């Protein structure tokens, strides 16, 4: 059994529609193939529409008086034979063939360097190297539209090279300058982590307008406190309680209060991150990694210290996983471990800022008009000036300074 359509037949040259004047059958009637089922009126002829199938009339779609276009549905008839299925099956097979042909066409790049006269002319007129243009045409062909797009997009570049003679030289300098290699020099290929570092640094410095700010923090109390507990801590926990853990803790707390610094630049918007995940810079002889202390604001100083130790070990043994490195929202860099007292960090793209924690140095400081020997440390902040301004960063640094200067035995618990 199958449900078939009976449609308005072509009832003469130039006839495109017909009006059903009378139905000669009703729903439920049994009809034989070629039996008349309806009378139809066109502006040329009056005619009877024959049934295209034998079967039972199921549903009359057109009402008497309706005008139906040639090929338009008149009624449904239920037939005994299943014709439709065979047809659809055959059609499906054809469709499959078409699809597979299409796929091969897309991967094909054979037309990549077949240029049409229009494309060649436009490329010459506009000094475009066709090898640098990607094509959207069949077989990777560069179409006229592709090249017009390049021309429209690159108008400014073209103008520059025409008006300013220096421009070409400048753009050449952008390409890496290759120095001479003399006898005895060692050539080290740039690859892997080194290459990634290079790319990230270039990207950060080229894209982010850096600004800098440094504050001086008196951490005498913190030093006293930490020195007092470090041996018992080591014995109890099995790892060192570093100063750095305290700094990370203070920064995490500061970021909680100044979330502007815990954000990222996204072109037409700034994304303020909810989680405070602090990247820390860890180096081995050749490489620099920035693994992440996740949710640093939720961890105790001990927890942070433990993370630092573990991440540093992983970096040294090259067992850091990509999970350890991702989702950082702000970077704290322990430059003090090299004895640095002042530095200007390159922001860890796409973060908004990086804080350099410099060496703690005992220095004479004037307190209440008297000299005192104090443990002083510089905190140097590099900030993305698109996202941040001096005011908010100043407040943030002041807050971190306040937290650190108030860290002592009575206020702070490492656990």
């Amino acid at each position, binding site marked *: 059994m199958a449900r078939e359509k009976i449609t308005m037949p*072509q009832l*003469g*040259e*130039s*006839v*495109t*529609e017909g009006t059903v004047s009378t139905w000669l059958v009703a729903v439920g009637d049994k009809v034989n193939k070629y039996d008349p089922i309806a009378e139809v009126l066109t*502006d*040329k002829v009056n005619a009877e529409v024959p049934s295209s199938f034998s079967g039972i009339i199921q549903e009359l779609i057109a009402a008497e008086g309706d005008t139906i276009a040639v090929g338009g549905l008149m009624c449904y008839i239920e037939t005994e034979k299943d014709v439709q299925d065979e047809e659809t099956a055959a059609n499906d097979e054809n469709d499959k063939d078409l699809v597979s042909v299409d796929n091969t066409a897309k991967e094909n790049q054979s037309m990549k360097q077949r240029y*049409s*006269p*229009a*494309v060649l*002319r436009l490329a010459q007129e506009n000094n475009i190297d066709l090898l640098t243009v990607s094509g959207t*045409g*069949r077989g990777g*062909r560069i*179409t*006229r*539209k592709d090249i017009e797009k390049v021309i429209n997009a690159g108008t400014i570049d073209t103008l520059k090279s025409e008006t300013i003679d220096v421009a070409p030289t400048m753009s050449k300098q952008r390409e890496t300058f290759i120095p001479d290699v003399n006898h005895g020099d060692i050539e080290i290929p740039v690859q892997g982590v080194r290459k990634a570092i290079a790319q990230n640094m270039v990207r950060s410095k080229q894209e982010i307008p850096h600004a800098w700010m440094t504050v001086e923090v008196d951490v005498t109390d913190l030093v006293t406190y930490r020195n007092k507990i470090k041996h018992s801590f080591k014995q109890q926990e099995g790892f060192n309680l570093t100063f750095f853990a305290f700094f990370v803790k203070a920064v995490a707390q500061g970021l909680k209060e100044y979330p502007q610094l815990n954000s990222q630049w996204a072109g037409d918007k700034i994304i303020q991150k909810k989680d405070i995940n602090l990247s820390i810079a860890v180096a081995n002889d050749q490489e620099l990694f920035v693994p992440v202390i996740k949710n640093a604001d939720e961890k105790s100083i001990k927890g942070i210290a433990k993370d630092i130790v573990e991440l540093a070990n992983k970096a040294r043994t090259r067992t850091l996983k990509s999970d350890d490195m991702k989702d950082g929202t702000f970077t704290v860099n322990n430059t003090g471990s090299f004895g640095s007292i002042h530095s200007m960090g390159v922001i860890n793209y796409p973060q908004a800022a990086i804080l350099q924690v410099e060496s703690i140095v005992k220095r004479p400081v004037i307190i209440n008009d008297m000299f005192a020997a104090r443990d002083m440390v510089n905190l140097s902040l590099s900030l993305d000036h698109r996202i941040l301004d001096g005011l908010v960063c100043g407040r943030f640094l002041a807050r971190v300074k306040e937290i650190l200067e108030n860290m002592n035995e009575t206020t702070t618990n490492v656990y």
Partner: protein
Amino acid sequence: MTVMSYIQAITAALREEMIRDEKVFILGEDVGVKGGVFRATDGLYEEFGEERVLDTPLAESAIAGVGIGAAMYGLRPVAEMQFADFILPAVNQIISEAAKIRYRSNNDWNVPITIRAPYGGGVHGALYHSQSLESIFANQPGLKIVMPSTPYDAKGLLKAAIRDNDPVLFFEHKRAYRLLKADIPEEDYVIPIGKADIKREGSDITIITYGLCIHFALQAAEKLAEEGIDAHILDLRTVYPLDQEAIITAAKKTGKVLLITEDNKEGSIIGEVAAIIAENCLFDLDAPIMRLAGPDVPAMPYSPPMEKYFMVNPDKVEKAMRELAEF
């Protein structure tokens, strides 16, 4: 504005021209009492009488010959060939006489005749009722061949043909007669012969065609627009002599050109269009000029699947357009 079918627009143009100029008269087979087999002259016999709506014998050579003679003596005959297929016995009159008299007589004589003929297939008309014969006449200087695609164009161009002082062949697609309906302004208007018309503005591919194929192209273009393929469609309207400037402009616009005709491919009108583009647009072309046409077989078959294979239709046009767009 009135909604009119293509054939109603033809009838309206005939009637208005007969009212405007009493020199205009109609002659042809069954055009009088019957009002034409397609009813193009419906009501004109009753309105203007047997002296201005003449039923003729079944002799196309005579219809053309009588018309040419009357035209030379100052009348403005509109001769109807019942089907374009039947024009062939009149070819000698049309090509050797009508087309050449102004030239041969050093401008002393001219032939302001219009010869109307329904052409085209897809109507189960088979061999003798489906042909496209425009290319037979399309290298005869002195003749003009007009093939309008819409009711609006049909009315304006038929008026221009009747008012033209030289012979005009006016081919009407018989399937368009009742298929196409459009708003027609009440007031008198004339569309100049020899001017192509942009039927759709687009920037990806250029389609140049005429007659019913314009509608296939427009339908396909709407479908392809959903895929982001933007078609520019030029309606030649006059297929001889061709509007070269419009063809060159349209071809240069996208650099990808598809030419369509319902006629057999080889030697058809679009071959000439391709030549004009090749001569003038080489450095703007972005793809080989593509042609979609009927196959080079002698006649439109009667069998419906065979006829479907022969005829250009919206699916074939869409496929060709997509292929060109993707090139």
